[in-house]
């Protein structure tokens, strides 16, 4: 039986799972490293090469939901050790859930939460609040730490049934809502920037500069419609357009 200290330790070790990320097994060695103290406690007679190879097989999932998956894995291993019947072993459970959990988790945390928090910090910085990076850091760390700790306790308590809990939270829907909120912030920020550009007293938005800007934004729009848009290209194109427009004034 794992104590709450063990579960917190599991969540802590999960922070370092990416340290040996590699192109063949992805997080395989990291998972083995995270689980090995707990597995060794139960399976000290079985910590041989085949056992390591099983847990060292290909594994990759979202880092924020990883504690949930690994805690459920340990719950399965514990039941197996106690002789209870388990629907599938820990390795098979990990293989089964890693891809769906990765898809949902990446969309939520990397695709939804991070852009929203970072955009908010950039907008605050634009208004002169220079401490905004600390706020972004604090918010993100607090939210993800809560998810990690909640997930590790629920994962251990529910075992494989934790998948149902993840489904109940409708994380994919939350990701869409976060992205929509990011778009609202983005639209407001773009309007503020446009307002600042028009109000810039150093140069009037007329003549060649206006033509250059309209051309730059049109090209940017066209490039954004393509999937392989490169933001760097947009930035360089803009800089050149501005330099040329300024030179023509």
């Amino acid at each position, binding site marked *: 039986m794992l104590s709450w200290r063990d579960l917190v330790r599991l969540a802590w070790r999960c922070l370092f799972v990416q340290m040996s990320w590699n192109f063949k097994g992805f997080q395989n060695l990291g998972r083995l490293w995270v689980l090995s103290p707990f597995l060794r406690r139960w399976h000290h007679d079985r910590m041989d090469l085949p056992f390591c190879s099983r847990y060292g097989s290909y594994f990759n999932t979202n880092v924020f939901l990883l504690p949930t998956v690994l805690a459920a894995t340990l719950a399965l291993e514990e039941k197996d050790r106690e002789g209870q019947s388990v629907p599938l072993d820990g390795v098979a459970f990990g293989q089964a859930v890693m891809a769906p959990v990765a898809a949902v988790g990446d969309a939520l945390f990397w695709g939804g939460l991070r852009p929203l928090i970072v955009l908010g910090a950039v907008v605050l*910085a634009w208004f002169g609040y220079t401490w905004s990076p600390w706020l972004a850091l604090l918010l993100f760390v607090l939210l993800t730490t809560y998810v990690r700790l909640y997930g590790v306790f629920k994962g251990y308590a529910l075992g494989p049934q934790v998948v149902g809990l993840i489904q109940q939270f409708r994380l994919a829907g939350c990701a869409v809502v976060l992205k929509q909120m990011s778009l609202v912030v983005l639209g407001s920020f773009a309007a503020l920037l446009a307002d600042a550009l028009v109000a810039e007293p150093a140069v009037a938005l007329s003549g060649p500069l206006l033509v250059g800007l309209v051309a730059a934004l049109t090209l940017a729009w066209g490039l954004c419609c393509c999937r392989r848009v490169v933001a760097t290209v947009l930035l360089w194109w*803009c800089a050149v357009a501005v330099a040329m427009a300024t030179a023509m004034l």
Partner: protein
Amino acid sequence: MLQSLLCRPLVCAPLAGSVVGQWTTGLAIGCLLELVWLLRLPVGATVAPDDTQVAIAGTLLYAGGLISFPLPEEAAVGFVALLCATVAGVGRHVEILVRQFNVRFSRRGLCSQGLAPRCHWCGAVAFVLGAWCSLLFCGLLIWLASFGLQWLLLLFPVPTWQGLPALLLLLAVVGLLPLLRIPHGRWLFFGSFLTTYVVAQVF
């Protein structure tokens, strides 16, 4: 490691700037670079451009006075960000090499239970060394490229427009418009744009 926002340009660039007492300069560079790669997700086997190292290198070089442009502060910061954004694509190859190298540690670590922790930490050391190499390499490239940019700025009339950072930010925002593909994305974006713009004009 830790998967916090510490490695994002928004955070690491001001931190690098604070080393030489230039927090706000780092923040300006960080904000520009952050928007460029906001939608680059570290998913699966994809390796995003090395935004962390270029943000640190660019900020240290500019705030430390090792590179400079014959431009006002606001415009110069914009050009530093441009150089960083261009060089970052090179830095990602160092990380790819490290991840390929870590395959050896993975193989060795799986040979025996005792070797797994040691090999795991060796992988971390490889990432740290790779980050240092990337930082030095990107810094060198930014430093060299700055000379070329200075030469170009001498050839062409120097743009003294103070609104360049705002324009660069606006263009970086335009680069985020693939977000519009989500449900009701266009309505939300243009609705908030128009509302804010009208409010800004009125007040």
